[in-house]
């Protein structure tokens, strides 16, 4: 049985696809057979972030509608052996994702994969609901900013009422907070919500904090999941998050701005 993880947020542009790419790559690099599914029908982008946009032949909707087999649609990642990508359709409307169709595909993937990562579209419409419906766990990607935090809370409410686990009265979806685009120096100046603030408001366990970094844009420009940029803070922060997802204890890093010397701290400003 595969563990099904949805990467969701409500708000757009907070880093869902970046996170899906890095988390799935991280899981696969640790030897787990992993598939990442793009649920953003009509606005496919995971393929671009993972540098396989020119290898897409069939997509998720083709599989649901029986026009292609799962094996025909799955794209094998060129960097990590145990990683596969199931791209979204660029042409169909999002209603093409039926609950039964998605279930069929997920059940079939469940037979051979250890992890199924579902990259949710923004919003709380059909595509987003389908992405979270079958989830066992949810990574709620949040920026330290008012609209993102509010939308994350909204998505948490939906996870607690509209997921399969909620409808079937099973154990609830396990929720994880992933705070992205975090800028410690702005937090210290009192200009940005802190990790503690967001944790207090959303009241779910913290999976990781990804610092705001130029590296993320550079990685997406090149189609490299940022977790593979091992020498960078953002890459390491994602690696920590994957380790925690797998139950490892790791201290949170990159939450303070550059350490200052003793005198600088005493007389700063």
């Amino acid at each position, binding site marked *: 049985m595969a563990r099904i993880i949805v990467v969701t947020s409500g708000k757009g542009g907070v880093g869902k696809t970046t996170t899906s790419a890095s988390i799935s790559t991280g899981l696969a690099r640790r030897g787990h057979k992993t598939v990442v599914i793009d649920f953003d029908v009509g606005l496919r982008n995971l393929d671009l972030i993972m540098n396989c946009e020119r290898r897409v032949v069939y997509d998720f909707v083709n599989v649901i509608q029986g026009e292609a087999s799962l094996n025909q649609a799955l794209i094998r990642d060129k960097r990590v052996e145990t990683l596969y990508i199931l791209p979204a359709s660029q042409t169909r409307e999002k209603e093409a994702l039926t609950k039964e169709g998605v279930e069929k595909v997920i059940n079939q993937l469940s037979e051979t994969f250890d992890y199924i990562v579902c990259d949710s579209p923004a919003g709380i419409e059909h595509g987003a609901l389908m992405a979270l419906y079958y989830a066992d766990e949810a990574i709620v990607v949040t920026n330290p*900013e008012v609209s993102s935090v*509010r939308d994350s809370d909204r998505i948490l*409410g939906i996870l607690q009422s509209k997921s399969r686990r909620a409808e079937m009265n099973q154990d609830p979806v396990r929720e994880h907070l992933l705070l992205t685009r975090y800028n410690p120096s702005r937090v210290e100046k*009192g200009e940005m*919500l802190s990790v503690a603030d967001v944790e207090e*408001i959303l009241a779910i366990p913290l999976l990781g904090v990804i610092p705001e970094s130029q590296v993320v844009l550079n990685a997406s420009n090149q189609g490299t999941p940022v977790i593979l940029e091992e020498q960078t803070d953002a890459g390491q922060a994602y690696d920590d998050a994957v380790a925690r997802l797998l139950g490892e204890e790791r201290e949170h890093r990159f939450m303070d701005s550059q350490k200052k010397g003793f005198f600088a701290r005493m007389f*700063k400003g």
Partner: protein
Amino acid sequence: MSFLDYFRSRKTGSASVAKERLQIIVAHERGKRDQPDYLPQLQQELLAVIRKYVQIDDDMVQVEVDRNEDCSVLELNVTLPERR
């Protein structure tokens, strides 16, 4: 934190405002989340009935459901206009 920070005003940042606003709106929206779906319509219909007798504004009728362990209480608050 250095001892000099003690003398520095900490209220310059906007983050504390953000946090306060979020706490209020999130608590409000969570309260609504657990409400039954029929509540808005119930509120509209109650408003219509009351308006047969007294002219009141939309926001003068508050309907809430309080859920306790073994029973739920429908709380209805109607503010009537001042008598002249």
